[in-house]
């Protein structure tokens, strides 16, 4: 037997920077760093000389100056004398609003379509795959514009609701679909309405408490309490009783035709509706595919084993299939939510005042502060994306199959 001794330590030579794998990575990184610095210096130099030539500078003072434009859909106080920062704030809230609405409806639509795609019914299956293929393969921008066109060109104007020979009428007497937007009744918060709301919140907590108690009872003693009807009762009864005892503090403000337009109620503008619906049905098609893939990923043996244990079909779904399918469904679902948030920037195509349309659109054009505006815009979206992916990572780690 010969023993292999370490080769003699060679002294460092320059050629080892290229040929020796120990040092080569250092060479490459040094080159990369050099290239990076040189290109950044080049771009920065160009930027500075271009800005100087145009007589510009980088400053964020414009955020404090009056915006000078109106926004028709705002959730917070805003007028044309408010600052540009305030306008950007309105935009951020509007972005979050439409993203939230679209996430909720897209999930409902997507889960429904995904489950129905696996239905035993041939016709339903085909219809749902038709829906998925149609909406996945056509750009969302075209859908937004199409729905916006329906909103503005097909729906009747407020004047069609007027007079005895009105060509349009309000749905159920309280919803008006007009080409200026949809008017829905607004709640009026009277005295004592706070108590009703508080009772409602408390009863939601009560439902959860009841379900926990029922589950604990089931595990401890094997007694099965009814779940559905008691939950509904706990949720609704106290609130309804309180509502009538306090003399109906919450009323509804119905939209009414006054002058040339509707007054009262809440106006949901056409652009918001277009964006909301288009994003929902477009992303719903993607979510449907995720849901289908998730359910199909649970092997048939699991369902059969659950049935062999004597579980009813509903329980097979709730206790065996869904917990395993959700592990597959939720990560792509969250990235679809992220896509909705990013796609909501298409609001600018239909004039919905989200952050892209206010900060990146009107403010940018009026102040000419292109670099600053785009920088802030990117920062906003980056913050949202990175925080959602951080949450995602935590979730993924907690849901990871615990293996040896």
């Amino acid at each position: 037997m010969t023993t292999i001794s370490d080769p003699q330590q060679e002294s460092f030579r320059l050629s080892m920077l290229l040929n020796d794998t120990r040092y080569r990575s250092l060479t490459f990184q040094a080159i990369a760093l050099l290239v990076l610095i040189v290109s950044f210096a080049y771009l920065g130099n160009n930027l500075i000389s271009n800005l100087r030539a145009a007589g510009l500078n980088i400053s964020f003072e414009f955020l404090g100056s009056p915006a000078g434009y109106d926004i028709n859909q705002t959730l917070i106080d805003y007028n044309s004398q408010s600052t540009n920062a305030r306008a950007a704030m309105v935009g951020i809230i509007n972005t979050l609003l439409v993203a939230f609405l679209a996430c909720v409806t897209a999930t409902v639509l997507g889960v429904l379509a995904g489950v129905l795609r696996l239905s035993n019914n041939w016709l339903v299956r085909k219809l749902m795959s038709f829906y998925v293929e149609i909406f996945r393969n056509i750009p969302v921008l075209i859908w937004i514009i199409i729905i916006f066109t329906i909103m503005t060109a097909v729906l009747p104007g407020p004047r069609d609701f007027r007079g005895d020979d009105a060509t349009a009428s309000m749905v159920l007497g309280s919803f008006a679909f007009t080409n200026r937007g949809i008017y829905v009744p607004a709640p009026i918060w009277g005295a004592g309405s706070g108590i009703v709301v508080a009772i409602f919140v408390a009863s939601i907590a009560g439902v959860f408490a009841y379900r926990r108690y029922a589950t604990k009872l089931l595990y401890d003693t094997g007694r099965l309490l009814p779940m559905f009807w008691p939950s509904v009762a706990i949720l609704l009864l106290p609130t309804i009783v309180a509502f009538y005892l306090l003399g109906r503090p919450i009323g509804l403000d119905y939209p009414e035709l006054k002058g040339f337009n509707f007054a009262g109620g809440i106006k949901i503008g056409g652009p918001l509706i277009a964006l909301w619906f288009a994003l929902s049905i477009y992303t719903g098609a993607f979510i449907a595919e995720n849901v289908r893939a998730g359910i199909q990923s649970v092997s048939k043996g699991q369902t059969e084993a659950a049935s062999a244990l004597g579980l009813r079909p509903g329980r097979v779904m709730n206790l065996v299939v869904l917990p395993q399918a959700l592990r597959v469904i939720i990560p792509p679902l969250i990235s679809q939510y992220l896509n909705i948030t990013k796609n909501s920037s298409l609001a600018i195509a239909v004039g919905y005042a989200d952050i892209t349309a206010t900060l990146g659109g009107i403010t940018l054009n009026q102040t000419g502060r292109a670099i600053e505006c785009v920088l802030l815009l990117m920062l906003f979206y980056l913050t949202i994306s990175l925080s959602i992916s951080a949450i995602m990572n935590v979730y993924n780690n907690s849901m990871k199959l615990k293996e040896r």
Partner: protein
Amino acid sequence: MSDTHEHSVAFVRTQAVPAAPPPFQATGPVKWVRENLFANIPNAILTLLSFYAIYVVLSATLPWMLNGIWNTQSLAECREILQGATGACFSVLVERWNQLLFGFTYPAEIYWRPTLAFVLLFLAAAPVLFFDLPRKLLVFTALYPFIAYYLIWGGTVWTPVFALLGVVGGFLVYVRFVRNSFAAGFFGGIAAAFVIWWIAGFIVPMLAWENPVLAAVPSRDMGGFMLNMMLGVVCVSLSLPIGIALALGRQSSMPLIKIICVVFIEFVRGVPLITLLFVASVVLAYFFPPDATIDLILRVIIMITMFSSAYIAEVIRGGLAALPKGQYEAADSLGLDYPQAMRLIILPQALKISIPGIVNVAVGLFKDTTLVSVISMFDLVGMIRGPILASTEWNGVYWELFMFAALLFFIVCYGISQYSQWLERRLATDHR
């Protein structure tokens, strides 16, 4: 058996009863309908609801489409002919056909050039998409970018020729040096190509004729569906190699390279494409030298390529991560160095796993090319919303135009996704 019981039992059948036909409800279409449409009550309700939905949609669209008018000059004429009946005015598609496809400023007499480039695209893409075709066709694929550039933009023939020469020179240098080390060949090839292009920058203006064979068309004249196709094809093909490089960089053991790649990928994936397009239209010009005039289409191509390469990098990273560790170790134990291991062992398998994801990104990117209409470029959607709907003849023809745009995109995207499913089945070499 029958003999033994002949006397003890009153009647014994001696012949088998011929098989009775199955009941009417358990065969053929009736059975199929019962099982697939009316299996139980909720199912039957769903079926009826679906029929109702189909009826509603068809009763609204069919008369409209069948009554369509194809040969008028304006919407007013359509309305005159229809006399208040429902009917589409498809004449807008006929009358503005060229504008929808090529934009409104591309010279009409040379429409044959982009059309030819489009037809050749299929020829060039065929050997990449279908492996059974002879490999020699790949030569044409390699030549195609230069031919297509020359056909669409025109101008002096020497620009694409020298561009091609640079690539060929770089390739020759690469072949010469790759035996010594991959890095030397790779970087040497790139350097050689850049040297040739730099020299060409001086020669081409001298060689350019006054009246080139194919008239030059400025980029701002491109539009319509042609623009969508150009952006889609160029950006997808450019972002593939960049995406592979970024994915490998993200897996790299060199910390600096890894950080650069991670920051780039996460940054680009975190912002919407529209903000990158804003960068292309209003910010990017600040970063170029003052005398450089880089036209909008090129800036848009740069930004979209960045965007899609980040997404493709993530898809390929997934493919790399999905490979069993044994493959990396096997490559190492064979004594292959990093470039060899990647080229021969890892990437072929990783890319195969990533194909569905890459195709998804490509389809998504092609759909996203419509966003350029927001920064006032006249692609298909931009043409419809801008010049066509704003014209006095066609103001108000929404459905026909948007359905046409939707149909074009649907055909392309659905075709690509069907191809990817075929490819997945074709490449499934594992035993599952």
